[in-house]
């Protein structure tokens, strides 16, 4: 008993100035201040931001054309950059000599110390459109005078000789955006149905709750697979992209709807909502002016917890060959190449595509956890 009064009393003792600050802050500001105290969540926020920056500037960061194939450079292992040349700072990579093993017919590569390809910052490479608008061919890193086997392959190449690093960088674009788009659609569905459910209650609530229960008890992957496999082969990458987004969002909305409904139900009983009702505010005004701001942070938290599931969904589908199809590049498509143990034994670096997947999922989870704690410190 006394223990409780102790812990409740701990929050006292702010300076008078900061108390004013707290009194005037909006719900979102309060959440943000609480969030900043979670070091791990804050770090995760930076990681997530970092990956989205990569996605935005993917082409600038890529070194080689992610689609360019060349049989002569199949399965090149990851290469290091030599920073010094005869004691002088002159970053370069060694050229490679490919020799075919006559027994296995595999290409083996040995660095050729005589061939030094200087590494340049903001070098010219393959041409692309920056942000889809500005035509350019500037890349952050590049080598001069490379041909076929000679080039900078930081993370090695795949069977067709495509640069894994560049492909990974470019893949962030699709993998991260499809998660966002899927969550966006889910959010729309979730807020709409959860809101209806929580606002009107009664029969509407019962029906929607039952539907949610049903959707949750269906094994989703076989259904996704069925739906995804039914997409016509003739569809373009963009069409497939949107169809897949729709499919993964169809099953992801339930958790969001649950959160929104719970919040609506709790808020409906709150004094400030009743006060607004008594003051004659319209239903819409109450929802958008009073209720929405006070659960926005919960929704943000639930969203960031739903994102990793979306990313995993896309990755799984593409990994199975039922999601996005080449020439699209996503993490799942890259991992598809790593499906076979025999291939992995010869080119283990293909598994590196798993690293960003795990990092991003982990970061989103920590971020979501931190946000949830910050949004609802007592819940």
């Amino acid at each position: 008993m006394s223990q409780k009064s102790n812990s409740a009393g701990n929050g006292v003792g702010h300076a008078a100035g900061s108390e004013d600050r707290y009194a005037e802050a909006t719900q979102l500001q309060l959440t943000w201040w609480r969030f900043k105290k979670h070091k791990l969540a804050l770090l995760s926020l930076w990681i997530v931001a970092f990956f989205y920056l990569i996605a935005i500037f993917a082409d600038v960061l890529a070194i080689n054309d992610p689609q360019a194939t060349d049989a002569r450079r199949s399965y090149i292992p990851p290469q290091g950059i030599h920073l010094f040349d005869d004691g002088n700072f002159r970053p370069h990579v060694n050229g490679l000599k490919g020799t075919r093993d006559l027994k296995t017919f595999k290409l083996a590569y040995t660095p050729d110390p005589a061939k030094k390809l200087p590494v340049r910052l903001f070098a010219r490479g393959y041409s692309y459109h920056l942000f889809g608008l500005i035509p350019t061919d500037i890349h952050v890193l590049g080598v001069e005078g490379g041909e076929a086997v000679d080039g900078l392959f930081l993370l090695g190449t795949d069977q067709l000789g495509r640069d894994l690093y560049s492909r990974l960088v470019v893949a962030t674009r699709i993998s991260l955006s499809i998660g966002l788009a899927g969550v966006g659609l889910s959010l729309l569905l979730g807020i709409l149905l959860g809101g209806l459910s929580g606002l009107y209650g009664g029969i509407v609530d019962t029906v929607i709750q039952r539907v949610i229960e049903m959707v949750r008890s269906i094994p989703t992957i076989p259904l996704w697979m069925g739906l995804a496999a039914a997409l016509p082969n003739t569809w373009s990458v963009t069409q497939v992209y949107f169809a897949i987004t729709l499919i993964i969002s169809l099953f992801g909305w339930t958790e969001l709807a649950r959160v929104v409904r719970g919040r609506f139900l709790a808020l409906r009983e709150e004094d400030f909502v009743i006060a607004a009702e008594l003051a004659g505010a319209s239903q819409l005004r109450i929802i958008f002016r009073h209720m929405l701001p006070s659960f926005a942070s919960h929704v943000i938290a639930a969203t960031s917890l739903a994102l990793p599931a979306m990313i995993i969904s896309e990755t799984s589908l593409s990994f199975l060959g039922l999601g996005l199809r080449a020439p699209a590049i996503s993490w799942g498509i890259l991992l598809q190449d790593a499906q076979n143990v025999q291939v992995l034994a010869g080119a283990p670096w293909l598994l590196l595509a798993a690293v960003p997947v795990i990092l991003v999922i982990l970061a989103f989870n920590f971020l979501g956890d931190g946000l949830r704690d910050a949004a609802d410190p007592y819940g």
Partner: protein
Amino acid sequence: MAEQPAQSAPCLLSVRDLVVDFRLDQGTIRAVENISLDLFAGRVLGVVGESGCGKSITARAILGIIDRPGRIVSGRVLLDPGTTRQLDLATLSNDSRELRSVRGGRIGLIFQEPMTALSNHYTVGNQIMEAVRAHKPKMTKPEARAKAVTLLGEVGIPNPDGRIDAYPFQLSGGLRQRVGIAMALAGDPDILIADEPTTALDVTTQAQILLLLRHLQRDKKIALMLITHDMGVIAQMADEVAVMYLGRVVEKAPVEHLFAAPRHPYTRALLRSVPNIHAKPRERLASIGGAVPHPARRPSGCSFHPRCPEVIAGRCAETEPAPVPAGADGAACFHAELTP
């Protein structure tokens, strides 16, 4: 040391200079400071004070069941003091066999919240029989069940044969509290600690439960420690009273003395806040100014001085009045020292 109440009744439990700390990240909080109490067979000690004054913590400290991060720092909890069987409970480890045999065996505990103090996953009978068999391991299940039925009858539950198989959520608050009392009696204790046993009940039920406690205590010659914040309950039940404030006993006296001539300003304030039948119509009930300070920010000098209407300027805020001596009556107040 003037009048030792009921010299004839043996002292069953003596608490001496008990200190309990809570170690939190923000620092250590002293929840109970140098408390000394005595429980006599067949008598009722009322412990009264506002919420957060350390009443419940004292009760739990006696039984060694304080929640983390609280712990007993010093002091003694003597069972059968002065006899050859004397045992200091404070020295025993919390989960030791000896202390466990005292808990529920010699000392029974009755709780405040009848709705949450029982588990909803087991029948009432199961939970009482568990308490019975915990202290009589040789007892068979049918014997324990018979004993549980007897106990339920003793605490005035109608149809104990049927109710023994009920789940707590099927019972009313009053019945649940009776079950709680039956459970506390399961080990045939000679000491009972009742922590606000009637706070969560409605007024009629309160009166019934108090009556039941009174009867049981008298019939079985039990030493009862009754914790409450209600001066009315004290007047009705207690033989001796200890008034607590911020983890300390500020006044100790036989009940009739306390009500006739309260010596500590805090006791007087508590008494003024009880509705009086002789009050004039529309008279406002007195309340104690201010709130109980946070234990981490204990005021200097006499800790009651910021709220005290009789504060002596230049003295109460600087120096601490002498504490109530262990095993005796008195008040920790400069006013009381002036007029003994």
